[in-house]
């Protein structure tokens, strides 16, 4: 009966080993998908390569459906699985700053580690930059403290907010994603950039 670590009280060392193995899978999946190239990542915002959109939403849907089926057959207890806590203002403002960081830097933390692993020096600078950014946040925390803590809504789910069942939301997301995939593939043809896609 999952999740195993909290329920079968697995030792901390084994939990850290699991973290490492999951990290391996995460790294391989990211690198194989091409996320180790910032130009491929940026392709989504300029149309010529919508890999980010395809991989991101397929992964989210696979995991979501997986959780629903595992829950249905009673192999996982969703009351224990972590759901991010929703702080309205800090999620939005944080997301905006991260969005800017994404388009300027070309990476996100996970992909920057993968890119650095295969020798991308700009990714290493990105990691260094993110460390400085975290340090600055820590130092100036007193200014953002109330923004950081305000608008607490608890770990609410989208299906609760909209008021539909989890299964319905999954289907809704799949339909929306299928539409987005189709549009993305159209955009890839329209904004074709042979010179870039050939190189990366």
């Amino acid at each position: 009966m999952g999740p195993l670590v909290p329920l079968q009280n697995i030792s901390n060392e084994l939990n850290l080993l699991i973290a490492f193995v999951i990290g391996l899978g995460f790294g391989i999946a990211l690198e194989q998908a091409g996320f180790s190239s910032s130009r491929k990542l940026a392709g989504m915002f300029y149309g010529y390569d919508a890999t980010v959109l395809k991989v991101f939403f397929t992964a989210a849907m696979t995991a979501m459906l997986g959780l629903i089926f595992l829950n249905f057959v009673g192999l996982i207890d969703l009351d224990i699985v972590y759901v991010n806590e929703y702080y309205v203002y800090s999620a939005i403002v944080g997301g905006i700053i991260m969005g800017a960081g994404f388009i300027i830097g070309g990476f996100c933390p996970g992909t920057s580690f993968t890119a650095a692993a295969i020798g991308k020096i700009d990714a290493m600078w990105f990691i260094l930059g993110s460390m400085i950014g975290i340090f600055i946040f820590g130092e100036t925390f007193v200014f953002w403290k109330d923004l950081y803590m305000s608008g607490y809504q608890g770990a609410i789910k989208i299906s609760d907010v909209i008021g539909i069942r989890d299964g319905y939301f999954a289907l809704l997301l799949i339909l929306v994603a299928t539409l987005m995939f189709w549009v993305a593939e159209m955009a890839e043809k329209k904004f074709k950039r042979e010179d870039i896609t050939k190189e990366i």
Partner: protein
Amino acid sequence: MKEKLRQPKPYMNPYLAGILLGLVLLASFYLTGRGLGASGATRSVVIGAVTSITPEHAESSGYFSKYLGDNQMKTWLVLEIAGVIIGGFLSGAWAGRLKIRVEHSPGISKRKRIYMASLGGLLFGFGSQLGRGCTSGAALTGMSVMSMAGFVTMMAIFGTAFVLAYFFRKNWI
């Protein structure tokens, strides 16, 4: 023939890579009950450094003191990111993409690319602490458990990136 060998293998089909990533995420939920993460690991490294250099300062600062408990380098996310680095390296080696270089669009110089990358990193580091997670921690993990926080963070990240894309097009295309 040697030239053929040098040619790096093509990237995996994005949908298949998405399913692979989804299954890794699902395995993480089933085994540990928590999703993936990345910015948390960077924070642990920063805190580990701050506490080792100036322990008193770490206690005094409001934000870092929250995480002072256990040894920061032996936390779940740091081990996970160690796995990501080695996994990325293995996959890069297998596909022949290992090469020390600065990847930048022909339109800009290496130096400018490195400035941009560090600035982007700085913004991302700062934003990930404020938003309590990055694209993998908050957005991807959040979306798969249908959390509102994940959905809003993802919309904010991709939305802002799309909006600002026009202003930074010189860096990419």
